[in-house]
């Protein structure tokens, strides 16, 4: 019979200590509710500050857990896993959230939509992402995904709290609604996929699926069929979250309508959560889903096709965008494609580790660069939401040389030019792809990055090579925003110039 443990037993048996980075952040969020309640008129000052502090606390907890943990440990009776993979992505998520919070403070103030809930929801969403990268069970994947997504739905619609019928508020409302409906829809796929996998293997625990699946595959019964369909549905569900073709339709509208700091945040953390889950499910649990003897995992072809489509569509459609946020939305679709290339490479036995490491470095580089680019775009936007078009940055190099320089480096990094973090990420991803024998996919990857050079360079052209015709852009260049840009810039350059830094950070990562 099952005996309910005492609290002390529960704490030790469930190894709660190793979940601290995530749980502390959730606890801090609750504290933040109180702070916001009692801070009074000072709240627009105190809440973001406390939010940053909470991220710092979580960061320190993360360092303690992963510095002490030798190898990997599970918690909550095997549902939660704390390994180098989790630790690394936790750091990326925390830095991303910090940058987003720094960007938000003055943006919200200027837009007149400042509310304490904003930071609470932001932190909650990031906690969801942190649980997602630590999920060792399909149930946890689902719960964490909802914790990650639901706050983001609200945040996307955050401008509509001041619904004055303006186009901006409407767009924001549309953005939140669209995101919510499609997100809910995709969650259904995820749950159905998890159910089918459970039906085939009798467990939702990822390591246990790994143990049971070979027998299921060998049996070649209807259970094999359920397993394959279940895996496909999981890919669909998570594919929505990371916005890969053909599940990307919601992205441009949602990204354009949401308040810019929210867009920046969700273009990074939601993708991290989704990719972490994909990697854990496909690489750890379903690496044994090999239908042809000695071949790669059965999902490799599917992922390769998705990756190729994503790369081509994301990059080509981005060319025709005039709005910078929409352009960055399509570019973020394309970048999901590059991470998909790494995921596909992980399907070949023996390449799994280097491909996973490549994906992680790519995510790190993408986080710094993309947040930086969004921060610059946010800076030059006008209060009425205008000013975010490609023509509006014309002559920025004259009016705001430092901002233009930062944006140039972000654009070069997104293109993948050496000495920026973007190159290091692309390099590791393509190295893994070549090693996995997916040379064709790697070639598509590099060729589409030439295409991407076209629209990224157009930004640089407008900033540097054309002279401004109109008046000076009223930039939101406050100290907080400047710090966000500086941190992003430092990350982009440091990880780009000192290549070993990134590769050493992930060298311990292994999820096979």
């Amino acid at each position, binding site marked *: 019979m099952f005996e309910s443990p005492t609290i002390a037993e529960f704490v030790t048996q469930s190894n709660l200590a190793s979940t601290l980075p995530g749980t502390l952040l959730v606890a801090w969020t609750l504290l933040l509710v109180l702070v916001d309640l009692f801070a009074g008129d000072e709240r627009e000052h105190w809440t973001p500050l406390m939010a940053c502090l909470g991220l710092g606390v979580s960061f320190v907890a993360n360092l303690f857990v992963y510095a002490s943990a030798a190898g990997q440990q599970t918690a909550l009776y095997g549902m939660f896993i704390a390994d180098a993979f989790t630790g690394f992505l936790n750091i990326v998520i925390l830095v991303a959230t910090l940058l987003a919070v720094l960007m938000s403070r003055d943006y919200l103030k200027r837009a007149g939509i400042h509310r304490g809930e904003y930071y609470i929801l932001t932190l909650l969403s990031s906690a969801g992402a942190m649980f997602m990268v630590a999920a060792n069970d399909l149930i946890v994947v689902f719960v964490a995904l909802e914790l990650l997504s639901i706050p983001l739905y609200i945040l996307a619609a955050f401008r509509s709290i001041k619904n004055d019928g303006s186009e901006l508020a409407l767009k924001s409302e549309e953005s939140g609604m669209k995101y919510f409906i499609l997100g809910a829809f995709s969650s259904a796929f995820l749950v159905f996929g998890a159910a089918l996998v459970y039906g085939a293997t009798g467990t939702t625990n990822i390591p246990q699926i790994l143990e049971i699946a070979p027998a299921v595959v060998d049996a070649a019964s209807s259970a094999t069929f359920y397993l394959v369909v279940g895996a496909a549905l999981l890919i669909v569900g998570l594919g929505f979250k990371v916005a890969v073709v053909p599940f990307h339709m919601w992205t441009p509208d949602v990204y354009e309508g949401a308040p810019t700091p929210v867009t920046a945040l969700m273009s990074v953390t939601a993708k991290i959560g989704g990719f972490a889950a994909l990697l854990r499910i496909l690489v750890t649990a379903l690496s044994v889903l090999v239908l042809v003897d000695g071949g790669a995992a059965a999902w490799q072809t599917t992922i390769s096709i998705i990756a190729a489509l994503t790369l081509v569509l994301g990059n080509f459609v981005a060319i025709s965008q005039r709005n910078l946020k929409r352009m960055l939305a399509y570019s973020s679709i394309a970048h999901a494609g590059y991470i998909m290339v790494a995921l596909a490479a992980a399907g070949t036995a*023996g*390449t799994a*580790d*280097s491909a996973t*490491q490549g994906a992680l470095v790519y995510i790190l580089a993408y986080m710094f660069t993309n947040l930086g680019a969004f921060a610059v775009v946010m800076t030059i936007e006008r209060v009425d939401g205008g000013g975010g078009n490609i023509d509006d940055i014309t002559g920025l190099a004259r009016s705001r040389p430092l901002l233009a320089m930062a944006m140039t480096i972000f654009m*070069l990094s997104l293109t993948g*030019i*050496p*000495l920026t973090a973007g*190159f290091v990420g692309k*390099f*590791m991803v*393509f*190295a*893994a792809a*070549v*090693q996995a024998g997916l*040379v064709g996919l*790697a*070639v598509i990857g*590099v*060729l589409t*990055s*030439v295409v991407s*050079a*076209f629209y990224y*360079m*157009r930004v640089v*052209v407008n900033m*540097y*090579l*054309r002279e401004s015709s109109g008046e000076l852009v009223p930039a939101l260049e406050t100290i907080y925003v400047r710090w966000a840009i500086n941190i992003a810039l430092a990350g982009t350059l440091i990880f780009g110039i000192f*290549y*070993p830094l990134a*590769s*050493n950070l992930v*060298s311990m990562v292994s999820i096979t």
Partner: protein
Amino acid sequence: MDVTGLSLTTITLFLPMLGLAILLFMNGETQRENLKWVAFATSLVTFVASVLMWINFDPATAELQMVQRNTWAEVSLGDSAINISYFVGVDGISMLLVLLTTFIMPIAILGSFGSHIFAERGREKLYYIFLMLLEWAMIGVFVVHDLIIFYVFWEVTLVPMYFLIGIWGSEERIYAAVKFFLYTMAGSILMLIAILYVGNTTGTFSTYSAGGDVGVIEMVQSHEGAGTYWDAPEAEAEGEPGFLFSSVESFLFLGFLVAFAIKVPIFPFHSWLPDAHVQAPTAGSVILAGVLLKMGTYGIVRFNLNLFPEATVAWAPTIAFLGVVGIIYGAWVSYAQNNVKKLVAYSSVSHLGFVVLGIFALNAQGLQGATLQMVNHGISTGGLFLIVGMLYERWHTKEMADYGGIWKVMPVFGGISLVISLSSMGLPGLNGFIGEFTILLGSLGSDFLGFAFTLFGTLGVILAAVYLLKMFQHVFMGELKKPLKDEAGYKLRWNEIAAFIPILIMIFWMGIQPIVFFNMLDISVDSIAALFVR
């Protein structure tokens, strides 16, 4: 194992970065007058450092010299890890091209002193920062022997050149800059895949062996006893594998070649060149013609020939044919131009065609001639672009019809221009002749190319005389069509004279005493040519 210890190569390589750092901390407005001096002094010190390298250089060995190799990072590939190393060193070919780079750079900087582009576009500080970055990256391309780091330097050259053309270029600068960037990036990015494939197959990214670690080139050459190209088929017939990358060698070869062919540019990949050259500011054109194009031909010699000898032989006639087409086509189109700068730009296509022909003759003469021609072309065409730039500074037009009779008002300038034009068309006694002659000699004695290659190549020498004399006649002879309002403009400024003097010295020195430069190349080139000896 690493070969540590600071080498002179490293010092030369990083000197421009020092200048860049100083420039970064200067105020672009208040210290505006000093910017150019910092840049010029840096490039001069870099030149001195490279001359020191030359003094230390021992031409009697094919080994890399002044080597430094430090492990930089590890790429984990499955069970094994591949080192990426900071691996620099020079052999004869690298040495000569490093000297060319550091030689051209101060001249290009001198040429842009007091240029109108700063009055129009400003941002002088940024301009010199980009020049320093460019010099660093170009030297890097010529001295590194690790494929990944090579790729890094190779791509980095794009960025400063893009801005130089885009910000300080003429009317169509944006189109030219974007075209330059996309075109060259499209070519080089496939090289990255080829590099990764080579690394994945051989387990190293180092091309040369150092400190006990075997490099890719040695692996290729010692693979299963396949000593030269001619042994390989026999080895394969006996059931042994031939060269290392047998089945995919052609793909890898093309992966590298496309990158280099666009940079050179080999016909039909040349369409970016006239735009970039014509729109670039004078210093940009000088560096583009003087050094940047040579990165392509250098890459072919260093990587294509060494790493993929079998594919090289298979493709040699095709590419040499494209080289010859380039010679004729470049000369033909050049003759048809009314725009002086475009004429000089197309002449580059023609001259680089000779270099390609020399390389794919695949023998010692051809390679020596090709390498020497790279330097010659850098000096002569660099000089020609300086001339065009100085004309433009005074008359603000590039149309040949607007000029005429310049010799009358600027006798010294006319004389210098004549010498440089003659050098470019290959007059015996001047530097151009030596390179072209050796190339033609090489192609005549080549095992892989027929007589027709030499024949049509020689035709190119004649055509060169035609278009260059046409230019000289239209611009410098006849009646003065547009007198300057201010007669002081006829006088050459001191920095212009200072830029021409080293060019003239080199034109005569290389023309009269080429043995100095041949000696430098001899052994290094032989070690490559030995791969293809029958």
